[in-house]
């Protein structure tokens, strides 16, 4: 043992070991998909500013950010669902249903606040039903939310009697201002997206709710054994997702100025796409608050750029698909190179 005393104490376990980390700081960011999608966005933006004079105009930026914001808000909620290895296909229909309940409330002469509450209550109820069926009855999220997709759309049709609503009662101007106008040159809906993103960022990073949702996505069994109320958490996640859609619906109807029960058809695919492009993994356990807006931004940017660049109409979808894949490829290439 004498020999040992002189040299390093090989037996000791000190801070040097416990504070070691495989990667840290900027290295961690470099490994995330949202970062690389963001790089892709910058690259497309740079190219576009040479291709089209219209691209960098204030008006175009205004439009792009507003268009993406609706999807971004919905994608924030979807991230939570996907993080638990679930999926919510009903968001598109729910947008339509919220549009109708909100529209009917306003049309009946109520103000913006009651309208908002009805809209959010609709969303919460739908989320609750989804969540309870999935968490307590253990039904596959895909089937439950597919069923809800059909049911919500049908209820929207029945409630609206298939009519379009475009008279929003006494506070119509306020309502349309909220959804369609801007503050300090930034569309209101973008402000909402920004605030919600910040809230989600905080939630994922600093609350036990966020931590538990991530744990459930990693290993629901282990989470359950750790005493996490898995069922209640899953219900809450679907409610959160639906409420995000409710917020998006409220802003969206104000922006469009009319509510039809056909609103949001097939938006679920766009929302899920934005989420997955933003780094979510359908197997669960991965979530980035910034992923949702970044994913939504990429999708909208591609659409806008192809139009401004004057790509022939029949070819546009081709490039949409191609750039989607290329954007995600970036992260892969970098992370494989690093190994």
């Amino acid at each position, binding site marked *: 043992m004498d020999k040992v005393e002189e040299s390093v104490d090989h037996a000791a376990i000190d801070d040097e070991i416990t504070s*070691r980390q*495989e990667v840290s700081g900027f290295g961690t960011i470099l490994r995330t998909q949202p970062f690389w999608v963001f790089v892709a966005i910058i690259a497309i933006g740079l190219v576009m500013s040479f291709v089209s004079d219209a691209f960098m105009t204030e008006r175009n930026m205004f439009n792009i950010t507003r268009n993406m914001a609706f999807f971004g808000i919905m994608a924030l909620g979807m991230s939570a669902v996907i993080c638990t290895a679930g999926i919510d296909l009903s968001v598109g229909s729910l947008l339509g249903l919220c549009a109708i309940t909100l529209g009917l409330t306003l049309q009946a002469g109520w103000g913006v606040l009651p309208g908002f509450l009805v809209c959010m209550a609709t969303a919460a109820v739908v989320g609750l039903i989804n969540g309870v069926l999935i968490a307590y009855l253990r039904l596959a999220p895909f089937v439950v939310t597919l069923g809800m997709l059909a049911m919500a759309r049908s209820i929207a049709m029945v409630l609206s009697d298939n009519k379009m609503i475009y008279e929003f009662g006494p506070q119509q101007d306020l309502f349309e201002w909220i959804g369609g106008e801007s503050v300090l040159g930034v569309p209101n809906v973008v402000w909402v997206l920004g605030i919600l993103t910040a809230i989600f960022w905080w939630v994922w990073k*600093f609350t036990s709710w966020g931590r538990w949702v991530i*744990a459930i996505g990693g*290993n629901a069994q*282990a989470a359950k*054994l750790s005493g996490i109320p898995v069922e209640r958490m899953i219900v809450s996640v679907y409610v959160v997702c639906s409420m995000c859609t409710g917020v998006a619906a409220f802003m969206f109807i104000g922006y469009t100025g009319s509510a039809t029960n056909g609103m949001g058809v097939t938006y679920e695919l766009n929302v899920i796409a934005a989420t997955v492009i933003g780094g979510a993994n359908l197997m669960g356990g*991965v979530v980035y608050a910034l992923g949702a807006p970044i994913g939504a931004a990429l999708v909208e940017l591609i659409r806008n750029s192809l139009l401004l660049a004057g790509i022939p109409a029949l070819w546009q979808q081709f490039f949409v698909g191609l750039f989607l894949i290329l954007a995600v490829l970036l992260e892969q290439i970098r992370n494989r190179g690093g190994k």
Partner: protein
Amino acid sequence: MSLLELESITKSFGAIHALSGVDLSIAPGEAVGLMGDNGAGKSTLMKIIAGNFMPTSGEIRIDGQRVEFNKPLDAREAGIEIVYQDLALCDNLTAGANVYLGRELKKKVGPFSMLDYAAMYANAGKLFAGLKSETRPRDLVKQMSGGQRQAVAIARTQLSDPKLVLMDEPTAAISVRQVAEVLALIKRLKETGHAVILVSHRMPDVFEVCDRVAVLRRGTKVADKKITDTSPEEVTGLIIGAIEAA
């Protein structure tokens, strides 16, 4: 009085009878070794006590009160902590986060309470150091070695002050140095009046720390003896079936 009493616990999975009519009791400050062949039903019994499975039939009493655990949280609230054999960790979280999973430390910042990462990592680091394990609190458990994962699972039981600690093969994957620490931990638990059930295939460990040893064979308890009244040879015979019962 016994801390925990099990009466004729039975558990079937379809045609497989994992446990049939098992009785067991344990007093505060006692350590019982639970041994048996692979598939004898040891883990199943542990999971029933921990509220992970409901028994097909039979009764569980804690401090003489009959209880029914519908979920793991029920058992934890009754003062039972467990190290699962399959460790039950969330691979996508760090070692520190896994230790504190379900009972995160928080700090107040103005009106908000937020997770206190610094405290959790520091404490987890101390727990690992206490087990003499070179486990890095800030790294994902997904990438950890078998022994590091086991250290995380063991560290978890030390956060609260349970009445009963169930350890399902806690030393299977860890090295000599940590084995000694875990055994020391069990002894400390006993001294402070906690009860411990230790499932292990390592005869020397069981004989070092346990007061009693119970042997399961194909789902039935074939022996329940004071350590001082038996020998490793007898226990081995009981496990493999060379001795029918004792």
